[in-house]
């Protein structure tokens, strides 16, 4: 008996000559448990809306100063660097 070649195997599956009953367990066929929706208070909703608004409006149009303030973590006290 000869072995099935790889390209023959592709044809078998592509044209559904042979179908597998066992499906791989993926997110598509696994029923995820439903998460209870958190009900936001009016204050939280307003806060969220405000944050979204601030983030988009600042980020899109951005306040542009001359330069950034150099404040990298661990280097907050650096004013002059001789060997960059």
């Amino acid at each position, binding site marked *: 008996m000869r072995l099935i070649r790889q390209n023959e195997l592709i044809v078998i599956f592509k044209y559904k000559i042979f179908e597998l009953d066992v499906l791989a367990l993926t997110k598509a066929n696994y029923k995820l448990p439903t998460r209870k929706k958190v009900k936001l208070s009016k204050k939280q909703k307003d806060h969220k809306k405000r944050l979204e608004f601030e983030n988009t409006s600042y980020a899109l149009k*951005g306040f542009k*100063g001359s330069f950034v*303030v*150099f404040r990298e973590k661990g280097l907050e006290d650096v004013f*002059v660097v001789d060997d*960059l």
Partner: protein
Amino acid sequence: MKIPTPNSSVRDIGKVVFKSKNTYFDLVQNGTREMIDLWMYNYARNIPDILDGNSVRLQSVFKNNSKSMKNHKPNNSAIVIGAGPSVYEKNHLETLANSNYKGAILCTERMLLPCLKSGITPEKFPQFFVLTIDPKAYTTKLYDDKILKKHGKDISAIMSTCTKHETIENCKKHGLNIFWFHPLIDDYRKQESVNKIMNMMSKSDKNPNGLPGLQTGGNVGCFSWIFSWAILGCSPIGLIGLNMGFDGDTPLEKTYHYDQVLNHFDNDKSKVGKFYRKVFNKDLGTESLLDPVFNFYRAAFLDLVVRTPRWTKTVNATEGGSLFGKRIKNMKFVNFLNTYT
């Protein structure tokens, strides 16, 4: 070629930024980092001048180690001149021009021509500096006036490597002595750091190690203050025209960044006011109005001033504005001149 505009795709450069409690601070900071295209555009065009130019290191009184700075004993004071409204309201330029002040003068670029025209010249004040960190085109005209032909050769121009190239051309045209530095913009400890790459490209026979990187504080007024003590070793440093805000009763429409802020809110005037705040200067008993940009600069300055070496004294002689607090002494400008001449 089209001159670059802010590039939002490079915002992740700012992700390592110091996490401030102030959300506005981070937003303005990251927004500014989007200017990276423009900085690099200018930097590339300045490279021939940088390779053949002088480093700010030549101006430094410190040896290349932190101990030298820690144990420094200043023997010279300095005055930083910003372009805030109080400099005109209080006639500070005339007061300085008529004084016998012997310390260093540090002009922000916007004040160069007004200073020279008011009699604050390098002939009268031999330690005369002008500084620029802004990459934008408007700086070009600030270095173009016939008065510079007379005084240019005696002025030291401290220039960011990302300054608009036409501005550098004007400085050269008028004979200003240019000294270069890299503005610190990201974490130079990392191999992919923009600052690190900039410095690699600036190494030359004249400057085998490249150029120093300097904290700027985000604006030229703050940078001038940093330069005065961190490079020149001056103290005390008197500040004039560094209002970082407006008088408390100034209408919002008359504030410097109003149009910019209005634009953020799609011209909805009702929203603009929410982003302004007032602070009470308890040293002077006056109220200051801050727009989001000045709020950002003020927060940076107040944060930096407490990190300076103990020998550094900062005197706010602006007679107004929002700079007050720990390690800042408010004083009238005439008193500063009488005390530290």
